[in-house]
C-alpha cells in the first residue's frame, strides 16, 4: 500500500464531485481525503485527492479518473516537487491550569488559538500532514473534544506545466 496525492482540474458542472467520488466507491478505490474549491476561473474546480493502493491500483485511479468527461486534467503531485497543506481545528479541554501549557505547545507549532471558553479552547493549525500529526501527538495528554480536518490541498512547485484556467 502506498499513498499518492492527485491534483485534478475539472469542469465545475453540477454533480462533478459525486461523479468522482462515485467512481472511487464503485471500483473499490481507497480515498483518504478529498478537497475541492473553485479556481480563479469559476468554470473550473481544483480538487486534491489523497488515494492509497498498490502501484497498479494507483495507475488505474489516474486513468479512470482522467477518463471522466468532466476531468480536464489529473496529475500526481509528487512529494519532492509539490507543496501540500492541511488545516485542522482542534477543540481541547482546557482548565485554568492547563491553558498556559497548551498555549506554549501551540506557539512552538505556530498554531493559533481562535476561541477560548471557560473549560475549552479551539486551536487552528495549518501545515503538512506530518506536522499536524506531530502536533496531535503532543496534545495526547490533554482531552481532545472535537477535531475537524480539511484534508490536504496541494500545488506543484514552479510555473512549469501549469494548465491555464483562462476563459
Amino acid at each position, binding site marked *: 500500500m502506498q499513498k499518492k496525492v492527485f491534483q485534478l482540474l475539472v469542469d465545475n458542472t453540477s*454533480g462533478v464531485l459525486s461523479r468522482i467520488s462515485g*467512481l472511487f466507491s464503485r471500483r473499490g478505490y481507497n480515498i483518504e481525503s478529498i478537497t475541492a474549491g473553485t479556481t480563479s476561473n469559476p468554470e473550473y474546480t481544483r480538487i486534491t485527492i489523497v488515494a492509497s493502493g498498490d502501484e497498479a491500483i494507483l495507475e488505474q485511479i489516474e486513468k*479512470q479518473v482522467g477518463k471522466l*468527461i468532466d476531468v480536464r486534467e489529473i496529475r500526481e503531485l509528487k512529494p519532492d516537487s509539490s507543496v501540500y497543506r492541511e488545516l485542522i481545528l482542534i477543540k481541547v479541554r482546557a482548565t485554568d491550569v492547563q491553558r498556559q501549557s497548551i498555549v506554549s505547545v501551540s506557539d512552538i507549532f505556530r498554531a493559533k488559538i481562535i476561541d477560548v471558553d471557560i473549560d475549552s479552547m479551539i486551536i487552528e493549525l495549518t501545515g503538512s500532514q506530518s506536522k499536524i500529526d506531530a502536533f496531535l501527538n503532543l496534545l495526547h495528554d490533554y482531552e481532545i473534544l472535537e477535531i475537524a480536518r480539511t484534508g490536504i490541498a496541494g500545488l506543484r512547485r514552479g510555473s512549469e506545466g501549469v494548465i491555464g484556467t483562462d476563459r
Partner: protein
Amino acid sequence: MLGADAMARCLKEENVGVVFGYPGVAICPFFNSMLSVDIERVLVRTEQNAAHMASGYARISGKVGVCVATSGPGATNLITGIATAYADSIPIVCITGQVDSGQLGSDVFQEADITGAVESFVKYSYLVKNVEDIPRIFREAFHIASTGRRGPVLIDVPIDIQNAVISRFVYPAEVNLRTYKPTVKGHTEQIKKVIKAITGSKRPIICVGGGVHLSDATYEVRNFAHKYGIPVVSTLMGLSVMPTNDPLYFGMVGNNGKPYANKAMNESDLIIMIGARVADRAISQPDLIMDNTVLVHIDVDPAEIGKNVGPHIPLVGDIKAIFEEINKYDAECNCADWVETLNGYKADAPQRKKPRAEYVDPAVFITMLSEKLNDDAIYVADVGQNQMWSCGYHIVKNGRFLTSGGMGTMGYSIPAAIGARAAEPQRQIVAVCGDGSFQMSMMELATMQQHGLPVKIIIFHNGYLGLVREYQYHVYKGHYSVVDLSGSPDFGKLSEAYGIPFYKLKNMEGASKVLDDFLSCKDPALMEVMIDPMDVVK
C-alpha cells in the same frame, strides 16, 4: 419553438432515423413534437428493450441508437439496457422525461433520480436545467457516445423545460468540450515498435475484440492479418471480425472458447490484442501470458491498457486509424510453420459429445443453419447455453454476430435483432435464444408486428435455464434449484396468437428441409427446436 420541438429538431440534425421508446406524461411534450419530424417512432413493450433495440440498431448501422422513456419507472426500466450497452461499449443516447424541475428532489409522482441511478453505467449524463442548453447538450451527447470508447449517454429533460420556449435554435457545428479529447491517431513511435515486434516474432497471434467492430475496422484488421499471414483468434465480442473459415482464423478464446485458440495464445511469442479488454472470461490468468510473450495492446481507451495485464507495447487510438497507418509499413514475418502447428492443434480438437438422438443436436443444427444463411446475414445470439453453442458452431461468412458479452443480459437477442432490422431492413436477421431468454422479451413480438420490423427467431427449447442447470450439476451435485421452466407456453399457439408462422423441429430428421422452409418464408417466423434437457455446452 418549445424545448420539446428543439429536442426533436436535434435528433433530425443528428440524422436519427428511428427512436425506440415508451411514453408517459413527463415525456409527452417530446413525443408530440416528434409528430412534426419524419423520424420513425417505435413503441416497444417494455423500456429495457428500447435500449436493446437502440443497441442492435447502433451495432448494425454504425450510427448512434436512440431510446426514449418517461420519468420514474420508465427511466429505471431502461437501466439494464443501458448497463448492457455500457458493458459492450455500444453508442446509444437515452432520453428520459423528468418531473417539473421545480419539484425535483421532493419525491413527487414518478420522480426518480435517473442521472444518479445510471451514473456507473453511462459515459456521461445530463440533467437539462435551461431550455437554451438543449442544442448544445444534444450535440455533445451524440459526440461523446460515438467517439473515443463508445458508450451510452443519458439526457434527462424535466417536463417544464420541454414546455419552455427556446429563444434561438442554433445547432452547434462543432463540439467544444475542453475536458474531452479522445486519442484517434496512434503514436508513430509505438506503431514502429509493433512493426519491429512482428519482424522479430516466430509465433505471433492476433486477438480481436469488439473494438474492431466499433471502430468499423474489420477490413483493415483482416488486411493486416493477411498481409503477414498472422493467425487470428477472437473474443466473444470480436466474433465475425474474421470469417470462420478463413485459413488464418482459429476460433474464440476463453473458458467457453476453442481449446486450440487458447493453446495458440499460450504458445505464441507475440500477442497483438486489438480492441479487447483482456477480460476475465477471455483470459483467465492474464499474468501467465506475460512470461515468454511480447504483448501489444491496441485500444482506444487508455484505462484498459494495463488494467488486467501490463503490455510491453501499448498503443492508444482509434483502431481503424491505427491500422490504416500500420498497413503502410512493411515487416518481415514468416510464420507459415506456426500456422501449420495451429492447424495440427485444430485437427486434433476433441469432438463434442453427441446428445441423445431423439433430440436436436444444437451443434449440428447451428452449423447447418449457418451454412444456409446468406453471406451477410446477421446472427443475434442470446445468453445461456444457446449463446455458447452459437459461439462455438455458427460459421460466420461475411455477416455479423451480435450478442450481449460484458453484461450477459438474457432477453437481448429479440430486441437487438429488431433494432438491427430497423437499421438494415434488407438483410437476413436471425435471433437465436433459449426458452428462458425468449420469455424475457417475447412481448416484443408485438412490437415487430406493429412496426413492420419482422425477424426470424429460433427458440432452443430444453425446459431448463440450461447454463445454470449445468452449473448446479457440477457445483451442487445436481441439486437443481429454480431452473425448471415448466409452465412455459405452447410456443406454436403463442406464435399463432401473434400471427407469426411457426416451425418445429423435434430431432435432426428432416432438419434441412424445415430450415429451408423457415429461412425462405417471408419474415417473421418462429422456430422451436427441441434440445435434450440434459445436454451440456462442451
